[in-house]
């Protein structure tokens, strides 16, 4: 690695050796980036096209930038689209809180405490990692409906209850792996100072687990924000809809006039994820690196 890092330092363009290969590599990479990013730019460009232009000009850029789609999309339904954003934000943020707390508690038990059947429970937890959510949706729906929670007083409970019960095994596993890297000597020291399991958790593990918590927070926010399946199943009233479910309402109205507003709202819906990406890109890319699941 260090050997190949040296020529790069000599300048952005054409390092002294292997110029042909390097340049070719760069050209290929730029070509791939162009192809990969095209749909995203096209989405943004189209969202600023007038209705006419959407039909006649499928190019990347609009001839005239018109923000009209954004205002039209925002007010397209009986409710302002802002309502759906608020709903999505609430579900996503509460999911972050739920996952953070419950997964941290479970991870601490698995990583540090000794108790009967720990090995068995750990194996079960790993087993649930690969359990497809689609398999459980029907019985979960029936259970939550029987309990009066679907379309109930506060319709987000079926979405949130599992998140407060550490059912996202991926995050439990991620935190277990992280906690194993915290030196046990710290626990021992706290123990000598008279701390019990709760004290060690509070004063040693919790403060040191912040990086794992941040990773968990970012990924649970993004995944919940983008999640469609569960929200589609559990939310039934327009005023309860989250952004992804509301977006599908545009598809129902198949008229051409809906395309512009639909694109505008799609762009807006991806904005929070994109901002997260900008702010945490290193962490995101490396977080998936070291924990390597999903995506």
């Amino acid at each position, binding site marked *: *690695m260090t*050997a190949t*890092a040296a020529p*790069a*330092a000599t300048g*952005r363009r054409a390092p002294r050796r292997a110029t042909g290969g390097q340049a070719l590599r760069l050209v290929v*990479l730029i070509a*791939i980036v162009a192809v*990969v*990013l095209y*749909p*995203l730019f*096209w*989405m943004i460009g189209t969202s600023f096209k007038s209705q006419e232009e959407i039909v006649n000009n*499928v*190019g990347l850029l609009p001839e005239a930038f018109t923000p009209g789609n954004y205002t039209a999309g925002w007010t397209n339904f009986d409710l302002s689209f802002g309502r759906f954003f608020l709903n999505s934000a609430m579900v996503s943020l509460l999911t972050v809180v739920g996952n953070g*707390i*419950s997964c941290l*508690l479970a991870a601490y038990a698995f990583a540090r*405490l*000794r*108790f*009967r059947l*720990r090995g068995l429970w750990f194996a079960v937890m*790993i087993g*649930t990692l*690969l*359990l*497809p*959510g*689609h398999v*459980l*949706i*029907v*019985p979960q729906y*029936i259970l939550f409906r029987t309990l009066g929670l679907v379309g109930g007083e506060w319709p987000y409970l079926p979405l949130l209850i599992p998140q407060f*019960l*550490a*059912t996202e095994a991926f995050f439990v596993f991620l935190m277990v792996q992280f906690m194993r890297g915290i030196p046990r000597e710290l626990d021992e020291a706290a123990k000598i100072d008279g701390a019990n*399991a709760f004290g060690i958790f509070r004063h040693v593990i919790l403060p040191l687990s912040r990086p794992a918590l941040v990773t968990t927070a970012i990924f649970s926010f993004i995944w919940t924000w*983008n999640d*469609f399946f569960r929200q589609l*199943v559990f939310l039934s009233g327009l005023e309860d809809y989250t*952004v*992804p479910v509301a977006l*599908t309402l*545009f598809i129902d109205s198949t008229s051409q006039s809906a395309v512009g507003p*639909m*694109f505008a709202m*799609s*762009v807006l819906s*991806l904005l929070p994820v994109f901002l997260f990406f900008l702010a945490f890109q290193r962490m*995101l*890319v490396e977080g*998936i690196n*070291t*924990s390597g*699941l*999903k*995506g």
Partner: protein
Amino acid sequence: MALTTAPDPTRARTGSVPTPASGRGVGRPRHGEGLAGYVFLSPWLLGLMAVTAIPMLLSLWLSFTNYDILTPWSEVEWVGLANYERMFTADPSYWHSVRVTVTFALVAVPLKLAAALGVALLLNRAWRGVGLFRSLFYLPSLLGGSVALAIVWVNMFNRDGAFNSLLGLFGVEGAPWVNDPDWALETLMVLAIWQFGAPMVIFLAGLKQVPTELYEAASVDGAGRWRRFRNVTLPMLSPVIFFNLVLETINGFQGFTAAFVLSNGTGGPVDSTLMYTLNLYITGFTDLEMGYASAMAWVFLVAIAVITAIFFSTGRFWVHYSDGEDR
């Protein structure tokens, strides 16, 4: 599920896969700690019971009934194996959805992994800008599963969409892709492949672990670029390839959002995008045949378990662990 390998290929390489059993004195918990363990574990245990185990059992029972959400519990009838019989012998659309799903996974997963590995190899050198490329390639993996991106995709591959106008530049007249039963699923495959960034990042982590001495030794022995790739990179990378393959296959079988958006929840055109999970959703939540949908869910679960088991049993023959640890 037979998954006991730590889903962390990069760390696995170091040979220190920690299992909970590696702690000292398991089975004889010290007084007090056992209780504390269960206190901390209680939310998870409750979740396991209420959100996972009980629903699973309920679903197993439902799969032998004619339950739909409208009939009261007292009138639910035990129908024995009728749901399974219907699935396997009398429901052509079921088999069609199996075919669609398997086709999707068989084509999209290898191509996605090939793209991921190819680009990872291009990026596997430290030079200025590599981080930027890596992030840009990863972006679709963050956005791609969303409804918004599926909407964009459908419009891009319309008859009058951007893709056809691009083809028009070369004088090719494109199909109406998303509205064409012969091509709709392919557009979904392209969408899946487009999200190659996540496995790419994992490949990159794996490539970093390959000792440079191995390449040097191979070069000294006169191995060319291809031989080095074939005889050093591939075997050293095989645990990561294995990991990505298992993960992406399981993900591939579960594709739902894009198929739902493309077909407006119907699996069309002409059932060409009727992915298994979409079929399950339609059966359970549109047709309200929840007993039948539960049977489908259980077959799906068993199928995924079997496929995972097959991966793990064949993995022994081609996955190379450099620490000699046999798993």
